[in-house]
């Protein structure tokens, strides 16, 4: 009886807090936060969080440009955030209100400032690379060892043909596939030249018959279940698939490789829409994420590296020493990042992407 009463009292208190502290609407990438981050934040602050997910920058941008999205914190990648900031959709970040801002790696802030001058509109959340996830057994049965972990698995028609029967998946994101395709051809991945785009399109068309589907999050489950054997994917997502496969214990072993030819490194930013209904709570949430323990807990769970210098000591050794999560210096030298596109290039890119997907 006493416990029931106490529970009721706690619930009543909780409800009271929720009313007093208000709500927070977060729109984040799927599988991109620790299991308990939101619950801990709610328990500590009494703010009620509505958590919603997306799986492509394009969808987020469409919502941002429509306006009145109702979200308080959104997580665009830096090159998309920079462009949306030009349309005036993001509020300036009040860094004074963020007591943990100093934890961020100043070098990374400097890199981000190229696209977001003075880091005005966003706070870096996590870093990712785009590379190859694969089913170790299925792949080594079909292709030579030297080809494993190379872009040849997806971009070389001969190699891809050998993998077609066990299933190749590719991110449904034109910018994040064209860039490595250009890079594979020895062209600047940020080139907006029409002829270069055509070359990359031809390359992708040559392997198109061997690609089973284009999707930006389905590959996590499919890799883990053994429904596909190769996927171009985001580092942490592939590593989550690796864990799920190990847990399921069905004889599927998944590995992640940043291809030796180089891959994309990206940053996802915490940003506040200018019409956010709960902007003050949004700052509280961002400051909470910037705490070393919280950032480390997210990294330990989602396997994405964080840009928080103070958090490194809290990151599990196993995660910190995983070259798929924290790439080695040599690999880093080969990584490239993306710049915002002009709308004209976007149209050509989407058109090329439709050609690749449908053959039309």
């Amino acid at each position, binding site marked *: 009886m006493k416990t029931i009463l106490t529970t009721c009292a706690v619930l009543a208190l909780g409800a009271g807090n929720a009313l007093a502290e208000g709500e927070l609407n977060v729109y984040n990438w799927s599988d991109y936060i620790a299991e308990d981050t939101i619950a801990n934040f709610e328990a500590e602050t009494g703010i009620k969080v509505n958590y919603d997910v997306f799986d492509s920058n394009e969808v987020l*941008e*469409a919502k941002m*440009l429509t306006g009145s999205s109702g979200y308080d914190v959104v997580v665009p990648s830096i090159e998309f955030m920079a462009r949306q900031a030009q349309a005036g959709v993001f509020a300036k970040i009040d860094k004074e209100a963020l007591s943990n801002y100093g934890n961020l790696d100043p070098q990374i802030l400097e890199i981000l400032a190229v696209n977001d001058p003075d880091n005005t509109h966003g706070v870096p959340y996590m870093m990712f690379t785009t590379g190859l996830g694969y089913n170790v057994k299925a792949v080594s049965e079909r292709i030579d060892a030297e080809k494993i972990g190379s872009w040849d698995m997806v971009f070389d028609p001969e190699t891809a043909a050998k993998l077609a029967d066990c299933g190749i998946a590719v991110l449904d994101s034109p910018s994040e596939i064209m860039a490595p395709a250009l890079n594979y051809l020895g062209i600047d991945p940020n080139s907006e030249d029409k002829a270069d785009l055509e070359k990359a399109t031809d390359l992708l068309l040559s392997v198109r018959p061997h690609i089973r*589907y284009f999707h930006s999050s389905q590959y996590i489950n499919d890799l883990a279940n053994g429904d596909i054997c190769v996927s171009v994917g985001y580092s942490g997502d592939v590593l989550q698939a690796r864990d799920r496969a190990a847990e399921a214990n069905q004889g599927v072993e998944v590995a992640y490789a940043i291809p030796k030819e180089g891959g994309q490194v990206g940053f996802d930013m915490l940003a506040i829409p200018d019409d956010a209904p709960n902007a003050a709570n949004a700052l509280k949430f961002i400051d909470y994420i910037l705490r070393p323990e919280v950032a480390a807990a997210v990294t330990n769970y989602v396997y994405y590296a964080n840009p928080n210098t103070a958090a490194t000591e809290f990151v599990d050794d196993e995660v910190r020493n995983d070259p798929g999560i924290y790439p080695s210096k040599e690999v880093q030298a080969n990584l490239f990042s993306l710049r915002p596109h002009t709308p004209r290039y*976007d149209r050509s890119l*989407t058109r090329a*992407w439709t*050609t690749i997907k449908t*053959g039309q």
Partner: protein
Amino acid sequence: MSQRETLNGKLPGGAFLGRALHRIGLRGRGLVIAIPVLWLFLFFLLPFLVVAKISLSEAAIARPPYLPLWNWDDGFLNITLNFGNYLFLFDDPLYLSAYIESVKIAAVSTVITLLVGYPMAYLIARSAPDTRNILLMLVILPFWTSFLLRVYAWIGFLKGNGIINNILMKIGLINEPLVMLQTDFAVYIGIVYTYLPFMILPLFANLVKLDQSYLEASADLGARPITTFFTVTLPLSASGIIAGCMLVFIPAVGEFVIPALLGGPDTLMIGRVLWNEFFSNRDWPIASAVAIVMLVVLVIPIMLLRKAQAAEAEVQ
């Protein structure tokens, strides 16, 4: 005048409203028609005009992501209409083939739905009233689950590692899993499955009214059941067939969820092209132009049909 107003003021609310409506020329029949007209105006015509307006604008990185159609400049009203969006649709063969493909997939699905649905509706209409209610209930029952969940369930059936493949491999019919998911085949299954009730219900409503004495008369005159079916039942159920086909064909043309979840990347349907224009290109004006053209594509067969029906009614 003033006396009348006072009089009106004293009347109970309902009568006052009635008189007010009366004064603007609305009564009885007109009032009943006014409600659906108002509904159509608010939820069809108005949104349509908004979409038509956006389709004449130009895309921009702004919020909302297109340029305004008109602006005041030094007391001049400048209106910029951009018909380029429509020209663009004819420039690029992609849009035409997407329309053709959508109409093709919708038409084939409609025919399959009719072939599957007609016998079901016929049997339900011919069964005893008690059984009939249970059977009708079973047709409607799937609506109690979310449409999205039911399409997801098909993924579980059709995928390489799914139920159908596992069963076929267990009994030794196949050695390698069949590729069924992410193909046009899966899209047809999805559409036929989803829209089957929309075919069965109007067909049932029609067939259940069919006068048995016609069939008896036909048999008395020596026609075999199959002849009776094609010369009596089928022609008499024509309006049910048309209603069912419309209910399946029209939404199937614009279908997005089924091709997105079950279709392959090369399943080109107009719903997906629209999604791409909206979300990948963030080009609302082109997306709106695609939507308007789709409406025109759908309106033409509906008008032709209405004309045919009107002609038929006149003959009768």
